[in-house]
């Protein structure tokens, strides 16, 4: 197997994701952890590009790196206690987090072994115009039309909830 540009890029983005994730849980300053998390989001977007899913890559950049990253940073800057001094790296719930991470890893390994690594590597080629196909299935009543409208309701609920919480303060 020859080393192509996509391999190099894959290892670069994988390093970005894994290194960033390790930094998120090891740095003592919560604000810096949020910045590292944004690097993880960027690496994920790069991996989506390599998987030939440009729409997911763009959504990852816009929503996770752009909006959620900023949201987390604002949430941290709102809480004075976190800004004052560096926090200890682990809290009382570390064992629960470790358990959940181990279970998730187990599920991923199980599914990969069940499907077979060869199947994953030699997956079907990605069709052209994926975004157009996604658009058709989103509004197709036999596709995801209901989920599409429910997503709108969910967003409305999130905004009303946020407004209510801020008003009650």
């Amino acid at each position, binding site marked *: 197997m020859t080393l192509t540009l996509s391999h190099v890029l894959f290892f670069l983005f994988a390093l970005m994701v894994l290194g960033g994730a390790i930094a998120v849980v090891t740095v003592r300053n919560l604000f810096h952890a949020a910045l590292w998390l944004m690097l993880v989001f960027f690496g994920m977007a790069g991996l989506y590009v390599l998987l*030939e899913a440009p729409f997911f890559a763009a959504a990852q950049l816009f929503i996770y790196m752009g909006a959620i990253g900023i*949201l987390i940073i604002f949430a941290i800057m*709102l809480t004075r206690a976190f800004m004052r001094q560096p926090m200890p790296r682990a809290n009382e719930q570390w064992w629960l987090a470790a358990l959940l991470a181990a279970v998730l890893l187990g599920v991923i390994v199980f599914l990969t072994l069940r499907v077979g690594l060869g199947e994953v590597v030699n997956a079907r080629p990605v069709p052209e115009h994926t975004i157009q196909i996604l658009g058709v299935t989103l509004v197709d009543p036999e596709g995801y039309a209901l989920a599409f*409208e429910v997503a709108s309701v969910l967003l409305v609920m999130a905004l009303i909830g946020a407004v209510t919480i*801020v008003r009650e303060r």
Partner: protein
Amino acid sequence: MLAQFTFVGLLFLVAALLGILPPALAWLLRPKKPHPRKSEPYECGFYPHGEAWVQYKAQYYIFALAFLIFDVEAVFLFPWALIYNWLPLYAVIEGVLFLLLLLGALLYAWRKGALEWA
């Protein structure tokens, strides 16, 4: 597909260089005479006081959350808008319903004064 992203990659590279090169050049060319006054943040002639780590107003959070919600809305609408010309009428109505629901939420937030900077 990957070839189309060459330009995106180049753009990221140029953007990173634009950020890195000027300070790097300045670091190379500058005379090195450190002074505590020089390392203070520049505040238009004022002496900076207090810490840089200050608590932010809660309103920043609601603005970021509103941005997140309409960001997600844009991502959902993009595939729909891309095939707008080929859609049957009911699919257009579905998209309009999606938009109207969120417009209602926006009007609610506006009415409740969540968009005012208090």
